């Protein structure tokens, strides 16, 4: 589907915000994503494939915001596009976040690393609208201050925003997962009950998500991760976006089974599987 570019501009460092008006209204839930082809569909064949981007925010007037980081050829082309142009998009795709456990949870904890914040602002806004009284604590991490995005917007809709940077240029100095761990252990001590636990939503680099698993699984905290994988199609055709399932028996497809997964269902270790699955073929 064609979408008109309403605006496209740098928000901070290498990060841009793209406001799109799709030809037909798109109904989405937080955590879903779009495939966006950089450049015209009958244009040059490099870059070839469309790129996956989270729906950052779906506005009430059927516009879609995408928050993206310029990292390679595709996002470089995106960053060069000017308003009034058009883009080919496909979506909304994927499952989106699940809210079943929110009502019963002690608090909602949202963890985002770097550009991983992209799907999280819409999530927090939706949560706030649905659960006005809920405590929502957002942990935002990055290498430095420049990586921390949407801080004000998040503050407006959450109970607390905790910042962490590796270089200490803003907030807690260290990994965001250290800040998270500290918070969780304190809150467990304070409450003395492990029956009512927080619910966690996270998006960011694999090592961050893995660390969160290590912290939350012993505490039996329900966690949802929005995952990334190389994608060719985004709609279940290519089977390229596999992520190993924790039971070791097979794979999920990030595009259709996800991108949101229960933390304990996926294997983010990157280690080769035990059984010799490898085949040379396509």
């Amino acid at each position, binding site marked *: 589907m064609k979408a008109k570019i309403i605006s496209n501009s740098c928000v901070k460092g290498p990060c841009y915000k793209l406001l799109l008006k799709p030809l037909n209204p798109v109904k989405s839930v937080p955590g879903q994503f779009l495939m966006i082809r950089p450049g015209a569909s009958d244009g040059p064949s490099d870059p070839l494939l469309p790129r996956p981007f989270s729906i950052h925010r779906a506005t009430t007037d059927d516009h879609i915001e995408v928050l993206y980081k310029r990292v390679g050829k595709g996002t470089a082309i995106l960053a060069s596009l000017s308003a009034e142009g058009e883009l080919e998009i496909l979506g909304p795709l994927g499952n989106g976040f699940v809210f079943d456990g929110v009502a019963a949870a002690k608090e909602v904890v949202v963890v985002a690393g770097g550009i991983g914040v992209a799907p999280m602002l819409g999530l927090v806004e939706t949560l706030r609208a649905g659960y006005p009284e809920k405590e929502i604590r957002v942990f935002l991490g990055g290498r430095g201050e420049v990586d921390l995005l949407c801080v004000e917007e998040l503050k407006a809709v959450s109970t607390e925003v905790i910042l962490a940077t590796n270089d200490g240029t803003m907030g807690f100095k260290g990994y965001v997962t250290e800040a998270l761990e500290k918070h969780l252990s304190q809150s467990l001590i304070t409450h003395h009950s492990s029956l009512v636990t927080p619910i966690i939503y996270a998006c960011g680099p694999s090592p961050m998500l893995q660390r969160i698993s290590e912290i939350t699984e012993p505490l039996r905290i329900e966690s949802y991760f929005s995952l990334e994988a190389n994608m060719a199609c985004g709609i279940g*055709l290519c*089977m390229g976006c596999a992520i190993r399932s924790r039971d070791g028996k097979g794979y999920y497809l990030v595009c259709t089974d996800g991108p949101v997964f229960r933390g304990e269902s996926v294997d983010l270790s990157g280690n080769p599987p035990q059984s010799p699955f490898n085949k040379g073929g396509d």
Partner: protein
Amino acid sequence: MKPDLSIEIAGIKLRNPVMLASGTARYGEEISHHCDLNQIGAIIVKGIALKPTPGNPPPRICETPSGMLNAIGLPNIGVDAFIKEKLPFLRQFDTRVLVNIFGSTVEEYGEVAGRLEGVDGVDGLEVNISCPNVKEGGIAFGTDIGITRRVVQTVRRATTLPVIIKLSPNVTDIASFAKVCEEEGADGLSVINTLLGMSIDPKTWRPRLANITGGLSGPAIRPVAIRMVWQVHNAVRIPVIGMGGIVTTEDAVEFFLAGASAVAIGTANFINPKVSLEISEGLERYLESRGLKNITELIGAVKTA
């Protein structure tokens, strides 16, 4: 009068000569939400083996200049589950279904073919010989002419269905493989499967695919595919299904001119899952604008003299 896009290939009558290439449309369900299967010539389903297999660990794909590498590892649900769980969906559509089959031994090819014999909704077999031969050292069946011959013989004996052999491009002389397939009774040839490639990330020093090497597809390989379709068309009389890097109508025309009787769209489905419909409409307009009545007028019509 509208030009006639219909064609009979390997005994299979097609509404139009545009197919979905194996491995790029799964078993039809996902793509059916974007592309009306009633309007395409045929769907060639993702490779099916005797037993289910989960495929390779990630990363399974990466982009390359005007192409992509994949090492999906042929995940499949197994032939029995395919017949029970996937075929019924496809039978709802007025299109042709070619089942892409593979095996890890020559015998397995025969067994899979045998199971599909007489199954309602299967119009033909496309035999993928680009996968590793587990019993005989792991080299691809399709890169050894003797093993290729045995696979064709075995499948031919196991079925009365139209048999289309999908040739590997990773060979010195593709025409000689084509001839062997024709000799052993193949009804048609698919040309080409992916080129074996590799890519390394200069940041991590790791291969970009967990499987180290993978298959190169997309526009990057089109010149190689066109050359091979032309060579095969000149070497045999059985029809050729041309594929490799088709994105636009003009790309498809190139394949017909080189000698293809039908085309299959692979990687381009990932860019635009409606593209095969657009190409079949584009072919109609192309013929119309040149006053041609029949798609057959293009086949092998390249002017080389």
